[in-house]
């Protein structure tokens, strides 16, 4: 290539504008809002294996409204057997949606519950593999389906577990004896 052609290449190269497509001035994509729920039967999910993402607490399920509350320990006296100990775990699915899953705590004194034990097993597998769970009503337990392909690394949210629990349950914390749920089970108006 002649000198003049080479000069032209250098001159044109110098005109390249800074690449403004990769900067974030257009807005930063915030993480998806975490939710509380069960594993999806359609989407594969992973469970965070870290201890810092395990949150042990008492929970109450309001079956009528489909709501779940977390309970401060001092409220157990008001709730009795309604309050059940659970380990809240952080999961995230293939679309990056963070979800709090309630892991049951097995009671050695009560009857074996295959729903609970299969769910715990699923969560354990989910710590290292992509899984989804399907209810198998006939067998009274969950089918655990492990992804055949490697679906890549999960995109974990950057918040701490405390922050996530606070965000998910902000209006669903029972910390006072006058909470509507306690009033309801006591028959108070």
């Amino acid at each position, binding site marked *: 290539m002649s000198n*003049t052609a080479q000069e032209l290449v250098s001159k*044109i190269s110098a*005109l*390249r504008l800074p*690449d403004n497509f*990769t900067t974030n*001035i*257009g807005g930063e*994509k915030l993480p998806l809002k975490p939710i509380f729920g069960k594993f999806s039967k359609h989407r594969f999910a992973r469970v965070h294996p870290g201890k810092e993402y395990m949150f042990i607490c008492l929970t109450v399920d309001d079956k009528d409204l489909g709501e779940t509350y977390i309970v401060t320990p001092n409220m157990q006296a008001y709730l009795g057997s309604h309050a059940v100990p659970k380990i809240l775990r952080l999961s995230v699915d293939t679309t990056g949606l963070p979800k709090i899953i309630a892991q049951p705590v097995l009671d050695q004194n009560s009857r074996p519950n295959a729903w609970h034990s299969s769910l715990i097993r699923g969560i354990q597998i989910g710590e290292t593999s992509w899984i989804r769970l399907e209810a198998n009503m006939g067998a009274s337990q969950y089918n655990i389906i492990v992804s055949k392909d490697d679906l890549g690394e999960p995109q974990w949210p950057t918040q701490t577990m405390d922050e996530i629990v606070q965000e998910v349950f902000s209006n669903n914390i029972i910390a006072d004896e006058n909470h509507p749920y306690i009033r309801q089970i006591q028959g108070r108006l």
Partner: protein
Amino acid sequence: MNNLKLEQCKFIFVDFEFRPVDGIEGNPVEVICMVAFDPQAGKYYKLWKDELYQLSAPPFAIDSATVLVAYFASAEMTCFEALGWTMPDHILDLYVEFRNLTNGIFLPEGKSLLGALKYFGLDSISAEHKDDMRDLALRGGPYSELEKAGLLEYCQSDVDALYPLYLAMKKYLDLPRNLLRGLYSTALARMESLGVPIDHPTYKGLCLHWDAIKAKLIAEVDSAYGVYENGVFKEVAFEQYVKQQGIRWPRHESGRLKLDEETFKLMAKLYPILAPLRSLRDSLAKLRLSALQVGSDGRNRCMLSPYQSITGRNQPSTTKFVFGLARWARGLIQPREGFAIAYIDWSQQEFGIAAALSNDPKMKEAYLSGDPYLAFAKQAGAVPQDATKQTHPAVRSQYKECALATQYGMGVDGLADRLKQPKLRAKQLLDIHRRVYKQFWDWSDNVYNNTVNKNRLNTLFGWQITVPQDINPRSLRNFPMQANAAEMLRIACILMVKRGIQLCAPVHDAVLIEATESTIDQQVQIAQECMVQASQIVLGDFTLTSDAKVIRHPGRFLEDDAEPFWNTVIAIYEQVKAEANEKLNANVLENLTPAHSYLSY
């Protein structure tokens, strides 16, 4: 170019009047007159053709600080080419800069010089007077003294309009990049002057017999479908045909069949049995062979209409430019004896640009593998790492369609149609694309958000768009790939012209070049080097490769899928020509009969 500052420049404003030689569209340019204005010296240069053709260089001095200013500079550069003058290094094309300034904005007065003057509230001559003068220029000589004076005066009025327009646009200028865009006009001038070699006798024959060919073409192609009646396409008959074939044809909400070009294109791809019918419809609807601009020397020359599309691509007329015709008609492109042509295009250019701009490591890896579609399938875990195009053609094809669909901004429905698969499969593939190329999608989201915030988006060399209200968000996401591809092509053309390549035409993201049979391989190599350099300039050293197809005389430019229809047309043409000759001979014989009879006595 780079170090020039507006204040240091010496500007020359210039305009030419010209017409094609002998007034035949497609012929090279014949210069009629020129007016140039040097505002610093306050001097006009007004020259008539006799004087211009005597000069070996422009009458005004062009040094390293001189910038030639024109409106639609490729026309002025074509005149430089016709006069044999050396092209200037610095050109400011106010048309291109006006297009760039207003790209995406509706212009009620248009983008002509008059439209630009009105946009800035500047005085201009009337459109009627402009038309009269253009007609006079096109008529050709000999011109009376009065007509000469009128043309020179008209030419000067355009130059006089340029100066205030420049002053009005000055504050928007970004000189080094303006000059780069201006420099492309020199490459355009070369291409518009050289043109594309055409098989002239066949072209003329096809034009002469086109009506008879069309009738026979319908009869021949339609024999497999039975959907034409007296030369007219019948929707009812076509509905019957698709029903018989078990083809689920897309319909309008009203229930009627969708018969637009795009639907036919897609369906012909899905059902190859329909391809000849599609080519027939295409040829009958669009093909006005006589509108193709072929000069007396058998070369297709037309205005390449630079920067016409929103992405800054060339948009030449679909009837005047041979690459705008139906694909089979490109068979008319044929190198002259002793010459060869080469069609060189970047390999998977948009995929490569997307990979480089987003800096997605997996996408880059896929591009560099040489077969990005198979690499995508491997990255998704859909095929083993040792899979090849031959071992996994079906999976590769699905991943290819998916990768292309994301480039075209296609959604689930469109991809499902292309794949002939349920929507679920299309959704799965698009989800996989998002998962595997996460960094690309984050970047794409960012481009979109950034653009929505600023209402403006630009390429790496400053071609910009003000976002129109009605733009499809997918088109906006695709703009960086398309518009930077256009930048890349322009830079490649500039470099090729600089290195002496005989550039015939740009074809979307490819170029057509010409050389003698003995030098074509070397010229292709140089052209490909220029394309590599252009990709590195635009993408910051990420290299895009290119593919070249060389065609030597008497070969023709025919893509595989277009060849059968070309063969059909040519077979019919030969038949029609033979019939016409027979008829002519019979007439001649009939006329000869009395004399012959007389002689026999």
